[in-house]
């Protein structure tokens, strides 16, 4: 069950004096959705493309489904599905023609009708690729990655540039791959996407993996504090002295409390309110996110 279908060891890529990827290692287990999360320029795409055999690494190795990518890149490409970020199509070929053309490039072929249906492109089947909307293009791009019915699928920023509706739509499609026992490796700079979709997440920054675990475990380990926001209408108190509170900040008229024990802190706040020491008309509790993990690990936000 826990068989590693992708093994990455010390992959390195340099462009002149710039190190794009500086020694990245991880395993991807069969059937999981593995996310690489990081800001733009962190080296996510370069890492992915070295595993896919599109880019030659300057050091290290990747083994995909038992095949060494460096030795047999074409062998690997036959077994994986690759969706590229922002890659174009033959504008004047229809959805169906595009899938038939790319299908002809593989030995193993998934039925075109099934792909069209699964990616909800039935109505667009005869439309030229150049006339599709952003979401439709992205779905066609994923359909092209599936033409060889691959068990391992690489998706590079699959939902970038999509509206929330189209994004949720694609998440369903990607989650469907896991149900079919396929393995998915995706990159993203949306922490919500990584949290909702991925079984495990590697957080990448400046060409290195700074943390790797399940989203829950990452949050527990690196951003244990829950944020409690209180909007006061009167009174004052020494919030820092409340149980569980580690840090107090003011932001837009709201007092933000970082708490390691949110239950105790909220109880204490309610007591203060009841005693009349402070009055507040709003209280919200916000779980820590991967964004907080990234902030904690790098001192920066994901998107700045």
């Amino acid at each position, binding site marked *: 069950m826990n068989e590693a279908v992708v093994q990455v060891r010390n992959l390195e890529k340099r462009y002149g004096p710039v190190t794009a990827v500086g020694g990245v290692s991880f395993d991807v287990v069969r059937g999981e959705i593995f996310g690489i999360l990081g800001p733009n320029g962190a080296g996510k795409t370069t890492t992915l493309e070295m595993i896919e055999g599109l880019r030659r690494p300057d050091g290290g190795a990747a083994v995909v489904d038992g095949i060494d990518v460096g030795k047999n890149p074409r062998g690997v490409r036959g077994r994986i599905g690759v969706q590229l970020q922002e890659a174009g199509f033959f504008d004047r070929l229809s959805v169906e023609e595009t899938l038939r053309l790319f299908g002809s490039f*593989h030995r193993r072929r998934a039925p075109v009708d099934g792909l069209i249906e699964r990616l909800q492109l039935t109505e667009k089947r005869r439309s030229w690729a150049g006339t599709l909307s952003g979401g439709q293009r992205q779905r066609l791009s994923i359909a092209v990655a599936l033409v060889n019915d691959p068990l391992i699928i690489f998706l590079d920023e699959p939902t970038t540039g999509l509206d929330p509706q189209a994004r949720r739509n694609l998440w369903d499609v990607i989650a469907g791959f896991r149900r079919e026992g396929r393995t998915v490796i995706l990159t993203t700079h949306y922490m919500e996407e990584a949290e909702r979709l991925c079984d495990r997440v590697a957080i990448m920054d400046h060409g290195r993996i700074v943390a790797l675990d399940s989203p829950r475990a990452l949050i527990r380990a690196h951003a244990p504090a829950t944020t409690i926001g209180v909007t006061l209408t009167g009174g004052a108190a020494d919030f820092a002295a409340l149980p569980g509170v580690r840090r107090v900040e003011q932001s837009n008229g709201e007092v933000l409390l970082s708490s390691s024990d949110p239950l105790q802190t909220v109880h204490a706040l309610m007591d203060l309110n009841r005693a009349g020491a402070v009055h507040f008309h709003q209280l919200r509790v916000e779980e820590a996110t991967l964004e907080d993990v990234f902030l904690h690990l790098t001192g920066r936000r994901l998107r700045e």
Partner: protein
Amino acid sequence: MSAFLMTVYMSFKHYFRDRSSIFWGMVFPLLLMGLIGLAFGRGGELSFRVGFVSSGGPVAEGIRRGLGEVVVFQVTEETDEAAALEELRRGRRTLVIVVPPAGSGAPLRVYFDRARVQESQTALVILERFVAEANLRLAGAEPMVRIEATPMAATPRLRFFDFLLPGILAMTVMNTGLNGVTWVMTEYRKNLILKRVLTTPVHPFAFIGGLVARWAVTNLVQLAVIIIIALLAFNATIVGSLWTIAALAILGTLAFVGMGFAISTVSKTPESANLLGSVLSFPMMFLAGTFWPREFMPAFLQPVISALPLTPLVEVMRGVAARGEPVALYLPGLLYIAAWGVASFLVTAWRFKWE
């Protein structure tokens, strides 16, 4: 279907759905042919337009009738001299003949266009002979020497469109490579279509070979359309074998598509690749004997013209299509074209990038 055949089929569809490539590949060559034919193609049959001005009288009437019998003269009667000279100035007449009033004893006045020396001089010679004969007749003398001219067609009789058509065919083959391939390949690269192909296990020979084959098919279709329209609309004739012309088109495709590929490997953007292609194809189009015999160009350019890869293609196309000569006569030229093709594909293999 195999990757190769599917690439040929789909990329041809992709081409055929693009109106601008249809224009450049078929409409433009035909347009050029029609326009150049209009400008230069009239030399085929000798004919002069003569304006005729007279104030009447039996002698003037006799001259008019006599001129009317000269086959190469199209005589138009004009009412006044000024109007007739205006027509001459506008280039609508070769000569204007003004007959003086009867009994004045003044000579026939003839006006001609100084700019069209050759044409005017020929017409004048004919007119002088006509006048001499008229004088003899008026004097009642029997001519001692007569000429009997029998028309004979030189074989093969080369009319202008027959000369022009092979040049247009060669030019079309060149443009597919230098203007079509350069744009398409850099566009595919810029849009990451080539990179998308690279993510599949397809062998580069199958995909690139498929594209080359589709350009060969494209050229054959373009040439067929041009030939059919040239035969029907321009009344052009082709003496040689159409199969040989097709084979020459394929050889030309390999050479010029190869050059297009080579150019696309050194250019970063579709615009710069297309510009470079045009910089090469445009002068070649006018120098290589495409539209008029290369001998029309000055002597110092002749070595340059000989070195252009389009020149031998035009020459062999014209030899086969217009004169029905065997291909073997042009072997050195064919080898030269092939050498350009081989060199271009070597550059491509060395420099080609998928992204």
